[in-house]
């Protein structure tokens, strides 16, 4: 028997029962589509995290008070904040860096009739370079404003859009907490990053935030940027030993501060998305398995239904292996067809979701190949048993079957 004829017979059998064939392959279509979409979306999420981390600023170190365990949901204990002296010490002792203090709080902001709660960061002019977030127009803080803690502020673009309603922001007076504050500059637009609007922000001189908003003379974080690539490790070690001296924790006790670099954060997030990808992929794989069982079920029904046909074929000279191949090829053709449709649906779904969520669209040939191979393999595995059942039929019993 020629291979092409075997294929032709199977295609005819599939075409003869179009609706049933479609419903049979539906399980495989859904299975392959969800595996492909899940894994692709996972890769896309990882890519988008990586891109966002890069936009925050590479070579960036966050120095935070307290202790933190690595990983998501790690335990954090609070500790005393830093002093401005710590920032100065780091600036003076560690070479090749930019450093900016940050005292972060949030305040009710009133602009004309609009009011909202906005994150406020007390910092210095080094913030722009360290956080890779520069002035669009207006001016930086003047030295006198910094030392006096003057009520001046630099605002993000979201405030202009949502609260200024088209008015000229520069020189305007806005209320931040209980302080009237003059706008002197506007930051460039950064967009959203990890669910946070990075343009919904107000920068003020650190002393202004300390005295006018928080009422404490400390700093809640220190941002450090290494000027030379690949030196963050060294910089981190220097900062750690310096702060250990300065903060002088209980002998033998753990540090009451920690340094995180963006690389760490990226890794944490990536491992989270990877875990999610594996989990969703596993669920999708189960649906693929269910699809395979669906194929087996229909093939078994089909063998029973076509017992007489099998008897006729055996009577006119089909060998057991001819019948076996016919049914096996039929189930492989069904599952492969389902696999191909599933790939198309999966990639289409991925494209739709990434387009809607503004994520990068990733298509991995490896994932496609695995999805396709699996669908073919499922046809072989779940088609074999029904095909064998058909091939083992006794010609005369099969012919007598009603």
């Amino acid at each position: 028997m020629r291979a092409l004829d075997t294929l032709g017979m199977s295609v005819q059998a599939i075409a003869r029962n179009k609706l049933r064939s479609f419903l049979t392959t539906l399980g495989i279509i859904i299975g392959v589509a969800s595996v492909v979409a899940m894994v692709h979306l996972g890769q896309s999420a990882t890519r988008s995290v990586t891109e966002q981390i890069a936009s925050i600023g590479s070579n960036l170190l966050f120095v935070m008070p307290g202790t933190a365990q690595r990983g998501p949901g790690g335990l954090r204990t609070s500790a005393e904040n830093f002093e401005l002296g710590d920032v100065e010490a780091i600036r003076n002792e560690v070479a090749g860096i930019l450093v900016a203090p940050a005292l972060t709080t949030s305040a009710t902001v009133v602009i004309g009739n609009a009011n909202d709660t906005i994150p406020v960061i007390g910092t210095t002019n080094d913030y722009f370079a360290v956080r890779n977030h520069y002035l669009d127009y207006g001016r930086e803080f003047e030295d006198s404003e910094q030392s006096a803690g003057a009520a001046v502020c630099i605002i993000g673009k979201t405030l202009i859009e949502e609260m200024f309603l088209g008015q000229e922001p520069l020189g305007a007076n806005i209320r931040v907490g209980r302080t009237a504050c003059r706008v002197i500059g506007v930051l460039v637009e950064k967009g959203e990053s990890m669910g946070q609007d990075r343009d919904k922000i107000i920068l003020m001189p650190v002393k202004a935030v300390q005295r006018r908003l928080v009422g404490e003379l400390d700093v809640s974080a220190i941002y450090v940027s290494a000027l030379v690539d690949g030196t963050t490790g060294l910089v981190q070690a220097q900062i750690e030993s310096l702060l250990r001296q300065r903060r002088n924790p209980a002998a033998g006790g753990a540090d009451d501060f920690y340094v995180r670099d963006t690389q760490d954060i990226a890794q944490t997030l990536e491992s989270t998305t990877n875990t999610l990808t594996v989990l969703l992929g596993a669920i999708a794989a189960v649906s693929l398995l269910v699809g395979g069982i669906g194929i087996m079920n229909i093939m078994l029904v089909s063998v029973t239904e076509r017992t007489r046909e099998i008897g006729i074929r055996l009577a006119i000279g089909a060998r057991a292996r001819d019948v076996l191949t016919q049914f096996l090829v039929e189930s492989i053709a069904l599952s492969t067809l389902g696999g191909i449709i599933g790939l198309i649906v999966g990639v289409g779904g991925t494209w739709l979701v990434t387009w809607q969520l503004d994520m990068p669209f990733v298509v991995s040939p490896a994932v496609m190949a695995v999805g396709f191979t699996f669908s073919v393999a499922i046809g072989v595995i779940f088609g074999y048993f029904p095909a064998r059942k058909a091939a083992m039929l006794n010609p005369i019993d099969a012919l007598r079957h009603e």
Partner: protein
Amino acid sequence: MGPVNVGVSEISQSSPCVVEARDIYKIYGSGATEVRALDGVSLNIRAGEFVAIMGPSGSGKSTCMNILGCLDVPSSGEYRFRGVEVGGLNRDELALLRRNFMGFVFQSFNLLPRTSALSNVELPLIYEGVRPAQRHELAMQALTTVGLADRAHATSAQLSGGQQQRVAIARALVTEPPLLLADEPTGNLDTAMAGEIMKELVSIREQRGITILMVTHEPDIARYADRVLFFTDGKLVRDGTPSEVIP
């Protein structure tokens, strides 16, 4: 409708035996429920003979024919087909024997549903591995032989019973087998159509010298054969010319 006398004289006693069966038993069940479908049957069929198997319902006609056609295996006994001991062959060898040496026609036609007459006739050639172009040609020739060339693309549902049986005959003959086995080929047809089918078989036999083994319980149909075997309760009880056997 009278008997048609076909060159019986041409089949001499020296023609080789196509079928040689010795002490064939086919027993279903055991103990009290035991059924002896065949109870020690021995018979020879020579090349070119047209043999009818007669007998009441349940006498083992079909069972005998299925065993001689290698669709079924006997419980015991020896069966030689063209000198080859069939008992020693495996499933696939039996399939090849059917493919190359036998053609089957059944009472219920047994065409593949929703498949054209042409495709049905082509089916045995597909299993032989014949290429499509040659396959079409041979199948069309076979359909022409049975007078159905113009209905080649009709499916079984679009054909009358007589036409379906002609397609089945074309399918049985397309591989040019030396032996044609027919189990009540006219059983589902009215008298007129039955006569046409029988004339078809007789003319094919005249053209090709094919050996025919046919089961029937109708004396009028059996008279087309040149030898009648009469079965009762799984035993071969009479063997002779139609006029000798049929009362």
